[in-house]
């Protein structure tokens, strides 16, 4: 089955791509896909991201389905610099 992986911020820059389409086995989890990405991309492993499946935060154990959108969410930093 195929899933769409979305990358943001420094993960997007390290990968050189905003979006990846990857073929994976039925029943894989979010964590499985993250391990695949870490194995194939330099310095992904240190990112400690959260994950969103079809725009909803999920944990690593979540099972993925065909055509799912998996977003890798590095630590967020919205807002502004004046009130941290």
């Amino acid at each position, binding site marked *: 089955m195929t899933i769409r992986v979305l990358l*943001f911020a420094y993960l997007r820059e390290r990968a050189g791509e905003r979006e990846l389409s990857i073929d994976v086995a039925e029943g894989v989890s979010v964590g499985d896909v993250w391990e695949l990405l870490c194995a194939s991309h330099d310095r992904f492993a240190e990112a400690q991201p959260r994950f969103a499946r079809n*725009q909803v935060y999920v944990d690593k154990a979540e099972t993925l389905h065909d055509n799912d959108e998996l977003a890798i969410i590095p*630590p*967020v930093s*919205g*807002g*502004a*610099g004046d009130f941290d």
Partner: protein
Amino acid sequence: MIYRITDEPIDSAALLGAVGSHAAGGSVLFVGTTREENDGKVVERLEYEAYHVMAVAEMQKIGDEIARRWSVVNVAMVHRVGVVPLGEASVAIAVSAAHRDAAFEACRYGIDTLKAAVPIWKKEYFEGGERWIGACDHGSQSRREGAG
């Protein structure tokens, strides 16, 4: 209720006006602006990136939670993306309520939760380099070729 990501300058007065109502006894507006100094570095500019669809959905969740926890009349939040020059607003949240305690508390909850949960990232460009804020280490920091 307004939840918006924009690449245009934020009109905070308009946002404040949008939450106004005869049912409200007051409104609170928070405006976050880009700051020149961070961590001992002189920042030249900031750039924001959003996971647009989910960012709006997460803002909506924050607004829903505010409506559950406080007696508010209206909530509006907007975050700017792309390059934001120093001193300009990157985020604004306006809350109106019948009573000021609810408006202050809800606005504070709104900005704190936005910073923690809404998928938006900030990149600082400073003299001689750049870095993503929120990265778990300083490995995301890099130096620009030919700068400095």
